[in-house]
């Protein structure tokens, strides 16, 4: 893990959004870090146990959708929670051995189990998508707390 930053602390969305950034080498054995952080953010956002478990699986699906996890590079995750809503964005910085983020678009973004990932994300979160950001692929999700007032 290269970095774990917490800024603008604010519990339960009473004020400014809380943002947590996590970066780690794109290795399969480190994907658990993404799940661990998602659980912490979900708890801080007031999610119940079921919602936290949904979030853990959903962020796992975001990360494994990048072939870069197997090819090298660096995974960057940005977790934001605001008023009972958690947003997670995932981008990949290619490593010397990897090339998946160059010119990748659309369905190519998804790994070999993309259809299963899509089914899981559809069921687990309120919104999810993929897009190009600054020339790099970004996958993201958004999940609202069930009892969120917003």
């Amino acid at each position, binding site marked *: 893990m290269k970095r774990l930053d917490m800024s603008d602390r604010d519990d339960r969305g009473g004020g400014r959004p809380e943002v947590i950034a996590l970066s780690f080498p794109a290795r*399969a054995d480190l994907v658990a870090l993404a*799940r661990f952080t998602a659980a912490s953010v979900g708890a801080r956002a007031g999610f119940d146990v079921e919602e936290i*478990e949904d979030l853990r699986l959903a962020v796992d699906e975001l990360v494994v959708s990048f072939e870069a996890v197997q090819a090298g590079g660096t995974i960057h995750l940005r977790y934001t929670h605001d008023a009972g809503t958690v947003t997670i964005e995932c981008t990949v910085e290619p490593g010397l051995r990897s090339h998946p983020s160059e010119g990748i678009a659309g369905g190519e973004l998804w790994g070999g189990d993309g259809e299963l990932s899509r089914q899981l994300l559809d069921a*687990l979160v309120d919104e999810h998508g993929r897009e190009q950001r600054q020339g790099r692929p970004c996958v993201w999700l958004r999940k609202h707390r069930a009892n969120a007032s917003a």
Partner: protein
Amino acid sequence: MTQVSEDNGPLVVVDGEIDLAVAPSLRERLETLLAAGHSTLYLDLLDATFLDSTALGVLVTVREQCQRAGGALHLIVTEPRILKVLEITGLATAFPLHGSRPDLAGTDQGDETTRHE
């Protein structure tokens, strides 16, 4: 990941979180058993706590290989989170599911099953 011998067929026991880091070794273990001539395999997920799409992909692939060989891939699972994943993806009916190892005695194979600690 451990493997024990069952009368009905090989039983592989996996605990903890089955994700991208574990899926390749799980696939290798199951495919090794298939290559050894076993067409029916049992996967004990009673102590597994997490299953993602990469692990599901392994199960689907091995299931197809078992079926082509005339057998099946049986799952022993009670964890609600894993059952939920199977249901979301429409795979809950794709595998013979069992709530415990002794339940296997009632499957079509009909042989007595031994519990392994």
